[in-house]
């Protein structure tokens, strides 16, 4: 059951990572009219349509993380402590704080991306999106490293 939840948690995180990275690129700068490069096309998505999905994925992925936390606290963290991998514990501590702050940012994020996009929200929309993207990237990478830590640190 836990293995299934870990895989589901990771798959949801992949979806969230993809959607939020698209949005983060799209607000980086105004897309050029004649841009046909990969980056231009990657950035040129209809970003506001991602918003509700991102909010939903963030919440569901966080709930999944919350359900996995007790098992992590008993099994994984004690192993990390036995192996004296303090940095691994530290990056997870940061991950849990980031997840919480990200959850708190979601209502404002949703407001800033609410169509029609208000020009007055442009700066706030950009920076909140970048912060959420940073949170998701950090948490995804930390989660993957900790999940594979026995293989990474034999």
């Amino acid at each position, binding site marked *: 059951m836990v293995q299934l939840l870990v895989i589901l948690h990771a798959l949801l995180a992949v979806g969230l990572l993809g959607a939020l990275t698209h949005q983060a690129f799209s607000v980086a700068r105004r897309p050029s009219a004649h841009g046909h490069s990969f980056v231009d096309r990657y950035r040129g998505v209809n970003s506001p349509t991602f918003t509700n999905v991102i909010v939903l994925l963030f919440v569901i992925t966080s709930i999944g993380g919350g359900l996995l936390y007790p098992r992590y606290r008993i099994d994984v963290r004690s192993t990390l402590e036995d192996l004296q991998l303090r940095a691994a514990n530290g990056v997870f501590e940061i991950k849990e704080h980031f997840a919480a702050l990200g959850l708190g940012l979601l209502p*404002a994020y949703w*407001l800033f991306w609410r169509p029609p996009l208000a020009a007055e929200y442009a700066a706030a929309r950009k920076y909140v999106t970048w*912060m959420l993207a940073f949170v998701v990237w950090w948490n995804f990478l930390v989660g993957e490293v900790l999940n594979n830590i026995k293989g990474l640190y034999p």
Partner: protein
Amino acid sequence: MKSYASFKVFSLIFGAVYMSLFWLNEFYGIAFLRYYPVLGGFYNERQPPETAGPAILWYFWLSGALAASLVVSLVVPRKWAERIPHNWVWLVSAALFVAIFVYERRWFY
């Protein structure tokens, strides 16, 4: 748009309360709710680690921040909420992110 101004209040309060509850526990050992995964239950009081194992406080910090930010965002009048500069949301959050990195650097020495 203006009818959703309380969303800004929620986001501003949530992060600040979450980190306040976290630091309250870090510096003074204060937490009103602890989850003990070994015992499989929530407890108000600290349980002996030999029998209860480690405690999880993250649920308490989250639920406390959720409750406080919900109440404040509902209580603050809409006119006040509309006056809050939009950029405060990300500025306050960015400050909290920096504070987390500064505080948690203790793990990397």
